[in-house]
């Protein structure tokens, strides 16, 4: 689904001494079936923005459109319900949302809320649990008996089971070890590739993730749009990113250093995967 934000602003705790402007004058347009990454420092308004996309927050000014739906200041809660069916949201530490007696029942909570029959919900839940790599012998266990990584996977399955078209991920791998991180990022990418109706919006602090998975990158700063473009375009601007307190992926950093020290102008520094980086270095060394 296409997503647009027009002149969007959001203020927390409006009309109190704690009033805080989190977002202002924000305009964005995302095409159908795109993997978008949003990067920015803590407090730049990333989390606020993504919560506007499924109506958990309503913009205090401007409007957001998701497909045919509009979210603005006075949108009714009933309409937001339909939007949430299309826009799934995985929060930071999603395992904090687990509550039911068994893993399977917990995953079924979402689809049943959105009007699926028990049988349908069970089917789709099992499918999603398989996708995230949870074995059938865990289905009847309590979610609180699982390991941290497994809990995270179950919680993600619980959001995927709603069958959203847009999946919002707010740092889905925070606090996981590198292997767990890699595993979950791959599962989510696989889900994204599963149908050309699906989009992902990933909020992240890790430039490596943004560069490897996303097709489009949004850089935010102090509640405003600072930069936008493909990973190649964005990560070519190291100085601007550093001025915003952000870095560039390690692979780009390495190639940049190599280019500087060797003086070889032919080196292409914008490579995001380890394979591509190794190849670039090999071709510099004159080996194929």
């Amino acid at each position: 689904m296409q997503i647009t934000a027009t002149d969007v602003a959001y203020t927390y705790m409006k009309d109190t001494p704690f009033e805080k402007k989190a977002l202002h004058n924000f305009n964005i347009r995302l095409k159908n079936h795109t993997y978008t990454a949003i990067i920015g420092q803590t407090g730049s308004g990333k989390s606020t923005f993504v919560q506007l996309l499924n109506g958990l927050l309503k913009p205090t000014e401007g409007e957001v459109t998701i497909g045919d739906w509009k979210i603005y200041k006075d949108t009714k809660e009933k309409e937001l319900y339909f939007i949430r069916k299309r826009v799934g949201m995985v929060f930071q530490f999603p395992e904090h949302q687990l509550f039911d007696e068994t893993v399977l029942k917990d995953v079924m909570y979402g689809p049943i809320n959105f009007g699926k029959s028990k049988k349908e919900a069970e089917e789709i839940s099992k499918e999603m649990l398989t996708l995230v790599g949870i074995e059938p012998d865990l289905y009847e266990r309590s979610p609180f008996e699982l390991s941290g990584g497994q809990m995270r996977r179950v919680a993600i399955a619980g959001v995927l089971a709603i069958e959203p078209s847009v999946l919002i991920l707010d740092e889905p791998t925070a606090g996981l070890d590198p292997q767990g991180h890699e595993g979950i990022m791959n599962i989510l990418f696989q889900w994204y590739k599963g149908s050309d109706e699906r989009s992902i919006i990933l909020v992240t602090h890790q430039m490596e993730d943004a560069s490897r998975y996303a097709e489009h990158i949004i850089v935010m700063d102090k509640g405003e749009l600072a930069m936008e473009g493909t990973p190649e375009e964005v990560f070519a601007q190291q100085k601007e990113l550093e001025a915003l307190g952000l870095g560039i992926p390690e692979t780009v950093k390495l190639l940049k250093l190599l280019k500087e020290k060797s003086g070889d102008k032919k080196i292409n520094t914008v490579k995001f995967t380890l394979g591509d980086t190794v190849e670039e270095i090999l071709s510099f060394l004159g080996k194929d």
Partner: protein
Amino acid sequence: MLDHVIIGQYVPGKSFVHRMDPRAKLICLMLFVVFLFISRHPFVLIGGLILTTTAFYYAKIPLRFYIKGMRFIVIIILFTFILHLFLTREGPAIFSTPIFTIYLGGVTQGGFMATRLLVLFIMASLLTLTTTPVALTDGLETLMKPLKKLGVPTHELAFMMSIALRFIPTLLDETAKIIKAQRARGANFTQGSLWNRLKAVIPIFIPLFVQSFKRAEDLATAMEARGYEGGEGRTKFRLLTWLKKDTYAVIVFALYALIVLIVKIGGGN
């Protein structure tokens, strides 16, 4: 929706009331609460109103913000007023239907009680709005010191209170987060039958309890790791300082108490 809970919330500021010693504030509040309810004489209430307005003025807490946090209290106050209105049978009848009669006494009694509660609530919340939880418990602990001789674990009590106060905002934050996560999964807390709405709360409370237990355990471990072993011989990082203005404030409230006592003994009601 949890944005406007003001109980236990501190609003930073540099006003006269903010800078008072927490002990002075506690003593004033205690005097006020006790003596406001001791007599029913109108003078007592008027005095209370004057004291409240003065304290309110010196605290410099924006009124707008205040009103929002009072919505729930207003319901209680209205409820009290209505109860008194229908249940008091004093004075001449001013309005009567076959089912009920309203007496003048009911209106004045109701109004009296409502104003009393309002004044009480404003005073009490002024204390938490202008005092950091840490200062508040420090103040309580020192005021409770005499009880220690009787074997009351004053340090532990004060410490429990400061932990409880400390975690109110955290719990509110966390509740808001879990509500959001479950709403994103289609939970609906505002529609359906009462039973369904009650059931909708389970997915919020269970994660909240699980998190709280985990946090309590972590906190205990962290405290032990840093060698915490109760109040014995523990010194304070923040020292409370009693200034002249604190004495004056206490004198004002003590005068109020004295006047109330005189009215009570003299007037008899």
